[in-house]
């Protein structure tokens, strides 16, 4: 290590070799190809976290169950809602939120957390991103057990056509085969998780304040998004002309659409195509940005970690 000089860092130092779309695409392709590797690592992460505990990863399920039951009981009383309809609503919203939260916070941390591996073993960056998303997926699957139990208990409430989440709220169609839409909905959300992890991961590796910013904002976003409260409350509070409020608080919040495409089919709520359109649009924009970041800064990540 000889000369210590200084260079301008406008966005990133000039790299003649690394910046090509082909290399970025190759990284993503090869990353996906290492299915066994990220599959193994993601599962290892889960096992590792609950190592030597008696019930192991079931703690994920149990802590979700406790939170959902507690919040469900409290908020159903606060909002004068029937527990049979409000608890499933809150549970499913919370499960989906947890997946999104994981992708945002642990996604920003992906490359920082894998510093050792990145510096010592040559592997596509996408492997680490998929490891993170896969880990979140496995946690979601554990949490879905809570959904199954809740569904079993409150099946009657949820399958009644015209049920209301809160009293005098919007009538909901009730559970039907439309619930199967949850599968493509989850795939779409996971696809978004992947770009979030790549893009936020790269930016966070360079600017270490970003994970803190994400951490600070997600707390606020949780309360801003209709998860523990429903949009019915907006209507109730501000009367029928509350469309403006609803637009302002819910529709402008991208997370609302993500939650809604998965939550609505799972608890038999009215499904609206505009949520799918918004999420689809975000998917395209997000992947374009992630791809751009991969093209320009993929080769820099090992220098930055």
């Amino acid at each position, binding site marked *: *290590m000889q000369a*210590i000089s200084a260079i301008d*860092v406008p966005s990133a130092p000039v*790299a003649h*070799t690394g910046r090509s779309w082909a290399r970025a695409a190759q990284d993503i392709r090869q990353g996906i190809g290492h299915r066994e590797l990220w599959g193994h690592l993601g599962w290892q992460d889960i096992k590792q976290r609950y190592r030597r505990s008696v019930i192991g990863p079931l703690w994920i399920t149990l802590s979700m169950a406790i939170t959902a039951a507690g919040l469900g009981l409290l908020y159903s009383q606060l909002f004068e809602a029937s527990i049979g309809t409000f608890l499933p609503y809150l549970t499913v919203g919370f499960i989906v939120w947890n997946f999104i939260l994981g992708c945002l916070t642990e996604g920003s941390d992906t490359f920082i957390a894998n510093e050792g*591996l990145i510096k010592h073993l040559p592997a596509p960056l996408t492997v680490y991103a998929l490891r993170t998303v896969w880990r979140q997926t496995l946690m979601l699957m554990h949490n879905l057990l809570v959904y199954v139990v809740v569904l079993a208990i409150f099946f009657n409430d949820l399958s009644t056509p015209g049920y209301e989440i809160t009293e005098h709220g919007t009538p909901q169609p009730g559970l039907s085969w439309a619930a199967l839409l949850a599968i493509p909905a989850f795939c779409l959300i996971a696809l978004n998780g992947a770009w979030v992890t790549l893009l936020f991961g790269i930016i966070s590796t360079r600017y270490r304040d970003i994970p803190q910013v994400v951490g600070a904002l997600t707390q606020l976003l949780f309360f801003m998004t209709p998860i523990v409260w429903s949009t019915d409350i907006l209507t109730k509070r501000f009367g029928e002309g509350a469309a403006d409020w609803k637009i302002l608080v819910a529709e402008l919040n991208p997370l609302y659409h993500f939650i809604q495409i998965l939550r609505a089919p799972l608890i038999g709520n009215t499904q609206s195509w505009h949520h799918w359109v918004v999420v689809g649009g975000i998917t395209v924009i997000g992947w374009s940005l992630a791809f751009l970041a991969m093209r320009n800064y993929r080769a820099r990540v090992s*220098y930055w970690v």
Partner: protein
Amino acid sequence: MVSIEVHNASVDFPIFDAKTRSLKKAVLGKVGGKIGTEARVPVIEALHDITLTLKEGDRVALVGHNGAGKSTLLRLLSGIYEPTRGTSRIRGKIAPVFDLAVGMDPEISGLENIMIRGLFLGMSRKEMEKRVDDISNFTELGDYLHLPLRTYSTGMRVRLALGVVTSIDPEILLLDEGIGAVDAAFMTKARDRLVDLVRRSGMLVFASHSDDLLFELCNTAIWMDEGQVKMQGSLREVLTAYKGRDPFEHMSKETLERLGETG
């Protein structure tokens, strides 16, 4: 065809947390009438203008002082660092053994670690399962493989890492110093396997301060100094220049013959 071509490559590390330095520079800049050093990040030029061509069958020793750029060069050759300037082209399946503490999870068993390393090096789960017995025999770790890695000594970790990389038929083996922690008997065994591997279809680059290991494993050498290639040639030539004396001069004739050095 296995090869590594590096052309005019440099590796510059930005040092983002060297705040004091940039602050000092900013202040000094003001005194000197300069503006806008705020956006500057100091960089360390770890490698400067490296041009190398390595081909099949090469067994290269990397020598040089601490901080001369040996480890960074190994990472450049492995593709972990892409050059900030210049180009590098790597053809072949790479297996690096760098820091033994990293890339191995201390909490999981040796077997699990073998699996993860193998998967990282591009093997499938099935292929690795077939090789576990072979690795177990070679490393002589036996039942230890079922214990968490944190119970292993450094030498045992080296055995494990060498066991994995030599069992998967890599084409380019990159070894950093640290593998010297194993005992002599095992080193002889490892040497045979490594030499055999290189002979079949490979290339070896080995950074070490231990002359004995270099004699055993390498035939050519690169002398790194201050991030540049100071000298490149046969192991004997380079070591003689680096050490200031011929390291082979006191060796017995048999040893010289075994190492393939005549005269």
